[in-house]
């Protein structure tokens, strides 16, 4: 049939301009697709690019940090517990030089701490006992002047540097698992609910309402208590209600696009529901999915630390940022270095991921810029 028509046309019609050259200008430059367009906008946003670099650095440290010195994350050294931080090179500037300010009895300056006292800050009396506030070189006192614990050691003498980066690694793994599961469930749930609409949608939305009504904290606590504090149970506990936000976004996208002409056209041509959902409508939501995943990670890190604080952290001896913070909190007033380093890492991580997420949102959907 087709060939016939073609032949007929070839036979009966004749092009009149075949020899003329069309005078249109040639397109210069490449075509810019959706992702390329977003990348251009993303690169202009200095804050997000910086945060991307910082995140890459932290991920690099989370992978290779624990291998950078000779100590293992569960290697205990009960002789060298709670050592202050000591970093080569920087120690010459007077910070992180392995010293600690202590209140000791004056006799001990010449007795117990002989040779290790660097400086007497002030002397005072408590009920006839002569006391002194002194700066002690803990590494000299313990006779390990050749050792460097970069971020100090914890109450079991484990190297804090190794534990911190290993903890970062575990927190990141937990949050990435939680994030991916949330995205998958959220996308599938939202797609079905939004695409089919009607009774299906009503039922699925009521289910979400019930689930959302349950205080999330309660569910997570019960879940972790029941399945035990491993990486997977904690990650899954964060997924129990975490996917709801994602599914709502995707559902809204489906409501927006499913009535459009191009979908109707495709359906008229006989496209199945699956093709329509995954090939025609879902790609519109890619920007949202990527943005949401960047913003979901800090949320998961926060919740993991939160669980660690209330005693549901990952099982010892494995560290996570939350576990380190919770352990540090116990000895905060005496040994602040155990809290400050994890607090710094978690703060930088959270701020960077938030900025990255905001940058991605602006890049994928410029109409939202400046809002919220």
């Amino acid at each position, binding site marked *: 049939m087709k060939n016939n028509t073609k032949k007929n046309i070839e036979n009966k019609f004749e092009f009149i301009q075949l020899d003329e050259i069309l005078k249109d200008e040639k397109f210069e430059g490449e075509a810019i697709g959706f992702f390329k367009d977003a990348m251009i906008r993303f690169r202009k946003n200095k804050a997000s690019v910086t945060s991307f670099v910082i995140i890459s650095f932290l991920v690099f440290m989370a992978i290779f940090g624990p291998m950078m010195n000779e100590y293992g994350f569960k290697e205990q050294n009960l002789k060298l517990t709670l050592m202050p931080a000591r970093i080569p090179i920087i120690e010459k500037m007077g910070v992180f030089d392995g010293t600690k300010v202590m209140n000791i009895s004056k006799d001990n300056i010449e007795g117990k701490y002989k040779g290790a006292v660097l400086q007497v800050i002030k002397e005072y009396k408590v009920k006839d006992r002569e006391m002194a506030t002194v700066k002690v070189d803990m590494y000299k006192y313990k006779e390990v002047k050749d050792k460097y614990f970069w971020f100090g050691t914890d109450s079991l003498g484990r190297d804090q540097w190794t534990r911190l980066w290993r903890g970062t690694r575990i927190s990141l793994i937990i949050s990435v698992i939680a994030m991916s599961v949330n995205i998958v469930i959220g996308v599938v749930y939202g797609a079905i609910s939004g695409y089919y609409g009607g009774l299906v949608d009503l039922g699925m939305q009521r289910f979400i*309402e*019930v689930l*959302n*009504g*349950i*205080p*999330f*904290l*309660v569910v997570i*606590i*019960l879940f972790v*208590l*029941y399945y035990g504090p491993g990486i997977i149970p904690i990650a899954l506990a964060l997924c129990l209600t975490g996917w709801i936000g994602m599914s709502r976004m995707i559902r809204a996208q489906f409501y927006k696009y499913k009535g459009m002409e191009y979908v109707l056209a495709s359906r008229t041509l006989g496209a199945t529901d699956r093709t329509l959902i995954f090939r025609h409508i879902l790609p519109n939501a890619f920007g949202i999915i990527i943005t949401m995943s960047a913003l979901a990670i*800090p949320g998961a890190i*926060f919740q993991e*630390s*939160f669980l660690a*604080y*209330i*005693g549901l952290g990952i099982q010892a001896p494995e560290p996570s940022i939350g576990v380190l*913070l919770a352990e*540090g*909190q116990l000895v*905060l*007033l005496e040994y*602040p270095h155990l*809290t400050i380093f994890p*607090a710094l890492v*978690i*703060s930088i991580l*959270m*701020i960077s*991921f*938030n*900025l990255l997420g905001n940058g991605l949102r602006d890049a994928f959907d410029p109409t939202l810029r*400046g*809002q*919220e």
Partner: protein
Amino acid sequence: MFRYTAQRLTLLVITLFMIISVSFFVLHSMPGSFITDPKMPKDVKKAIEDKYHLNEPMIVQYGYFLKDFSKFDFGLSIAIQPKVPVNQILATKVPVSMQLNIFSLLLSLPIAIVFGIWAALKKNKLPDHIISIMIIAFIAIPSFVFASLLQYFIAFKLGWFPIVVSTEKVLTWNKFKSIILPILALSFGSIAGVARYTRAELCEALNSEYMLLAKAKGLTQVQATTRHAMRNSFIPLANIIIPMFTGILGGSLVIEKIFSIPGMGSVMLDGINAKDYPVAMGVLFWYSLLGLLTILIVDLSYGIIDPRIRIGGRK
């Protein structure tokens, strides 16, 4: 409106019932017993457990629970404060948490709104940039990190405030001084949240056409802003303040732990950890009820605050 409220209330009761039932079965199927003394003879242990019906099939226990629950009676505590009614324990703990949250709300709202307005009026100028950076930092950094830092630097190093909360029952000056730090730690997050929201809403209102009209009829910038833009931008604000309250209630769990405040959070954790079922169920019930009521109030308030939003789907 009435029909919608009634519908929602029924749904709330059903949801609450489901939550409580699920928590009941989960709690009771956890291994272990509330008796931690390993030296206790087996028959004594069994006798005590029998007294609380703990050795009967779970469905029978559930029946007993429902019978008491219908009267809002959660029974006596069995491990944390033996033989004290759960409701009495909660009555001493809930006000402590509430106090903290109300103060935090009172502190954060005015600050947040002022910051938000300031940032919106000076959009894309220096104050806006500074406030935006602050907002990002406050939203991103968890409240317990703030709590630790405040406790170390302000309470311990500078000695301005006590390190832990004083145990006085009534609100004296000493007590107030000791809860300032936890309140601060709780407030940073909500200050940032509300400020960001206010800024966004006000920015939008300032660019709207009714502002142009207001200025066209002769109002100054200040008059137009206070009389028109601010009023409109505050409408949606109510909807984030109410959930913020319960949000803080959950978030204060860790803060309560850090500053050793005897509030609801510690009771819940102790109750679950010590297998003190009555106490755990009681706290879970109140937490769930508060959470559900908040959602309901938010949904209903949409219609009251802004009459343009019709509730109940009737068009």
